[in-house]
């Protein structure tokens, strides 16, 4: 049986989808943001791997096809963006100012907290690109001499936490404007936050998609300056 589980081509994707289904069902049933489908599915899948003794590498042999779809899915984010083009054009200044403020705040928060918590320069630059999409963040971390594996882990954690807490944070700071909600989610927690923004609404999703690209590129530009500060 174990041999079958190890060799199956479809098991990993099936387990991932079933656990996502469990997460969605729990969220519907208990109506609480804490039971976030993405978080529940990650936890369920990890438990399944522990329970069956399947290694991550074996799981990823099958699950990599889900990851493979990420590039075409991210490309497709241009579609909602195009559908909201008028809205985007009419609010271009606010949109750019919002994303820029977020990027600088992200770098500044990491700088101040790294100083306060006594992190080394390498640890600091590892965390600098934490709010942006994985592929850009990896490149920034590598270029600045950070630990790329940690950067990737922190980027994923940032996305998942943003996905879980996003709606709560919008309420907390009274961010009500759909454009602003989307920008906030995308700038703070990249594509994983955008997945949440898409669930909230079309405008939120489009603005969040835009933020992934703009925040990513702005971070590449500003991170070099910030890297020299600690």
């Amino acid at each position, binding site marked *: 049986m174990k041999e079958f589980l190890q060799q199956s081509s479809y098991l*990993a994707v099936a387990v*991932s989808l079933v656990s*996502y289904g469990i997460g969605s069902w729990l969220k519907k049933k208990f109506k609480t943001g804490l039971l976030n489908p*993405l978080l529940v*599915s*990650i936890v369920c*899948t990890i438990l399944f791997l522990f329970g069956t003794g399947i290694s991550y590498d074996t*799981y990823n042999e099958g*699950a*990599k096809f*889900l*990851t493979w779809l*990420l*590039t*075409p*899915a*991210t*490309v*497709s*984010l*241009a*579609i909602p963006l*195009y*559908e909201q083009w008028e809205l985007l054009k009419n*609010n271009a200044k*606010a*949109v750019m*100012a*919002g*994303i820029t*403020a977020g990027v600088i*705040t*992200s770098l500044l928060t*990491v700088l101040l*907290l*790294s100083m306060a*918590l006594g992190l080394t320069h390498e*640890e600091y630059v590892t*965390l600098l690109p*934490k*709010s942006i999409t*994985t592929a*850009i963040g990896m*490149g920034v971390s590598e*270029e600045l001499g950070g630990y790329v594996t*940690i950067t990737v*882990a922190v980027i994923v*954690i940032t996305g998942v*936490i*943003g996905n879980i807490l996003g709606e709560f944070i919008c309420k907390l*700071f009274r*961010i009500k*404007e759909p*454009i*602003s909600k989307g*920008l*906030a989610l995308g700038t*703070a927690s990249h594509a994983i936050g955008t997945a949440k923004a898409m669930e909230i609404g079309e405008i939120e999703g489009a603005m969040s998609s835009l*933020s992934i*690209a703009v925040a990513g590129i702005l971070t590449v530009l500003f991170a070099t300056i910030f890297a020299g500060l600690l």
Partner: protein
Amino acid sequence: MKYLKQFLIILLISLLGEFLKAIIPFPVPASIYGMIILFVCLLTKLIKLEDVKDAGKFLIEIMPVMFIPAGVGLVTSWGVLQPILVPVSIITVVTIFTVMAATGLVSQMMIKKDNKEVQ
């Protein structure tokens, strides 16, 4: 054939993005180049919305599950994360709050101001 054609267009743009990533020495992933290319193609009507809409919306809808493997992969990073877990956790959580507040409030303030000027 409809879905095949739509998915093909999206894949070809992904491929073009991959090519740009290979030749441009800037840490921007293929997906972001692809997103910009598709956006420009839609704006210039080089690609019609109907030619990508159904397949694209399907991909966007199932996007959350594409992050499960990366999330599960965190178990393999436990060893490197553990020694700096406390500062990393603090920085991660605090940053989400400050960034969302800054982005959300700055843009919301400017949208309100612009709307007042229009009225």
